[in-house]
């Protein structure tokens, strides 16, 4: 592995580099910045909801809606996607034994589009939620924030498409001839499947964004009922991209879990083939379930049934991954270092999230949970529980390889427990809030006892999570400057072989 931070290099050398590990490092730093500032918005939202009425943390509903929109957009497109790209950049060339990505310059261009999209999203702070649903987004949402959001997302979408093409070509064409695809790491498979899904899914929403923009200009009426358009058409286009997007976020996390669990259990993966098969199945059935977000838009019985079946068909593949992880851990000599703890914690939360998903998919029950806080709790258990936990575990795991120094293991474990307790308190409680009928995206709620208590538990969980995040960042920054030099052969003392490329020449 290449040492990025240990060897002193001028900043501009990393910034203008096209080398895959440098670009990967930039992606990772950008995504962590996004995680922290987006997390700060979430803390503000939760603190505002600690009591009914206006707490003065967020002055008015308008600001609240802008914060809520920026939080959602930021976390999905600037934390989850760039982090997965960053780790992919770092590891894919090494895992397929090539000197770099297939197109290093394109890779750097794709990265540098990301901060531009980020600037547009953050400086605009649109107020129409991350789902920008018309007619609100075309008739009532104030500009130029809405336009800035549209172009920001457009740029981020193009960046992911460029990155995805680069990954696919690197994996399929630049792979070492002696290395069959079925011998590559499951992380390579995860990145390959994610990239293919990005290529299939993103163009649909890219088109919808242009339609949304021309609708806002008033020159078209695709989604404007006053001009004969149909707002529901937008929702179909949106969810055709963004339900598969859930798997685009989740599959890299699952791939990372496949890297960590066998190493820290000191056992080979229980079944490599079923891991590959489950990835392929997920990538296909991910496209059969988009309209389960739309049961309550007036779909007829047949449509609802079709999408319920499509949604449930994604469950066996996800369950296969979970089975594979547990079977790998079974009887292994597990070392619960920070990376492994994060992955196992993520696995627990993934189970809750998946069970909640089976509930949502049922047509009658969806009318109870839809657009309520249940949904907020449910999808946060995925993105925060499974995905962010696997990402943070992987970040700790890669830390010695990237910096040449070891993070503080005790601080890492405290971080894990703070985040695990905090996240469980926030999002499991929000399921109950939803059953009490609290709608999502609300600035205030009715002052009745169950709602107040549940919101308060949730908010205290958010504060615990904030403490954990502060510790995480302190540990990462402090250890990369002053940490103990890591044992580069086996930094976690688990007697495992990591990557052959430990001995690789740093730069070409």
């Amino acid at each position: 592995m290449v040492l990025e931070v240990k060897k002193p290099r001028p900043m501009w050398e990393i910034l203008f580099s096209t080398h895959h590990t440098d670009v990967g490092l930039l992606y990772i730093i950008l995504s962590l910045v996004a995680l922290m500032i987006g997390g700060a918005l979430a803390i503000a939202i939760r603190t505002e909801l600690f009591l009914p009425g206006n707490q003065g943390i967020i002055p008015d509903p308008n600001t609240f809606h802008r914060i809520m929109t920026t939080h959602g957009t930021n976390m999905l497109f600037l934390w989850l996607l760039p982090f997965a790209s960053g780790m992919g950049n770092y590891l894919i060339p090494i895992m397929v034994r090539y000197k770099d990505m297939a197109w290093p310059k394109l890779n750097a261009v794709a990265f540098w589009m990301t901060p531009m999209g980020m600037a547009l999203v953050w400086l605009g702070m649109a107020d129409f939620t991350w789902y920008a649903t018309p007619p609100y987004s075309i008739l009532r949402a104030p500009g130029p924030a809405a336009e800035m959001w549209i172009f920001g997302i457009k740029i981020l979408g193009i960046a992911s498409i460029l990155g995805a093409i680069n990954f696919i070509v690197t994996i399929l064409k630049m792979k070492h001839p002696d290395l069959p695809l079925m011998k590559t790491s499951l992380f390579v498979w995860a990145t390959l499947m994610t990239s293919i899904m990005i290529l299939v899914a993103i163009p649909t929403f890219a088109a919808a964004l242009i339609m949304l923009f021309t609708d806002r200009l008033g020159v078209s009426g695709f989604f404007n009922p006053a001009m004969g358009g149909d707002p529901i058409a937008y929702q179909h286009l949106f969810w055709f991209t963004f339900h598969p997007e859930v798997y685009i976020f989740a599959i890299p996390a699952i791939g990372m879990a496949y890297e960590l669990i066998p190493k820290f259990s000191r056992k080979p993966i229980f079944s490599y083939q079923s891991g590959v098969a489950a990835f392929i199945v997920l990538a296909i059935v991910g496209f059969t379930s988009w309209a389960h977000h739309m049961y309550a838009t007036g779909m007829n019985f047949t449509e609802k049934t079709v999408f319920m079946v499509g949604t449930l068909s994604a469950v066996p593949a996800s369950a296969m991954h979970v089975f594979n992880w547990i079977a790998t851990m079974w009887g292994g000599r597990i070392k619960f270092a920070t990376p492994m703890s994060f992955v196992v914690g993520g696995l627990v939360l993934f189970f809750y999230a998946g069970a909640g998903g089976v509930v949502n998919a049922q047509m009658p029950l969806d009318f109870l949970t839809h657009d309520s806080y249940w949904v907020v709790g449910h999808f946060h258990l995925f993105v925060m529980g499974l995905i962010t936990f696997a990402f943070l575990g992987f970040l700790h795991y890669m830390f010695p390889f990237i910096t040449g120094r070891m993070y503080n293991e005790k601080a890492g474990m405290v971080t894990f427990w703070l985040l695990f307790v905090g996240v469980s308190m926030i999002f499991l409680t929000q399921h109950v809030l939803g059953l009490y009928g609290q709608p999502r995206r609300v600035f205030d709620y009715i002052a009745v006892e169950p709602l107040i208590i549940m919101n308060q538990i949730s908010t205290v969980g958010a504060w615990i999570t904030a403490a954990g995040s502060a510790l995480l960042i302190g540990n990462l920054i402090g250890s990369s400057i002053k940490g103990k030099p890591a044992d580069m052969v086996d930094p976690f003392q688990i007697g495992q072989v990591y990557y052959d490329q430990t001995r690789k020449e740093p730069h070409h």
Partner: protein
Amino acid sequence: MGHSTVEWVYVGVVVALLIYIGASAWDVERFLDHPPKDAKVVKVTGQQWFWTFEHEDGKKELGELHLVKGVPYVFEITSRDVNHSFNIPDLTVLMDAVPGRINHMWVMPDASGEYLIQCREYCGFSHYQMRAKLFVEEAIPVSGETEVSNIPVSVQEAKPVIANN
């Protein structure tokens, strides 16, 4: 790899559970999706940020809705401006109000009292306080009994499960 038997058994169990869950959901929804023929129509219109209601007899209400216990009602839900979602959490009524469309949802209130009506789809500045009140009143005895007997038994069983809170 020698693991295939246990994997197939596991996947088989998961699939069987999903089929069972999916089939029972389908069975419940089949009833919930088809309003009774004699249901009374109530037109529901959402706009930023209040609800208006119009009964079959032309009586209009603003911010309040009066229904009779034991009578099935079909809501014809639409919107004047942006998307809203008509929601009575205690009765599990939830249906989006979309401009240019009329969506249907039916309910038969089974207990008298005062319930909350709210908007559950983000609709702008005052989304969080776009509320109304539902008053369910006791039926006049004669008409009430005949109405109840028209409803399939399974529907009456399905309702309390979701209206529990």
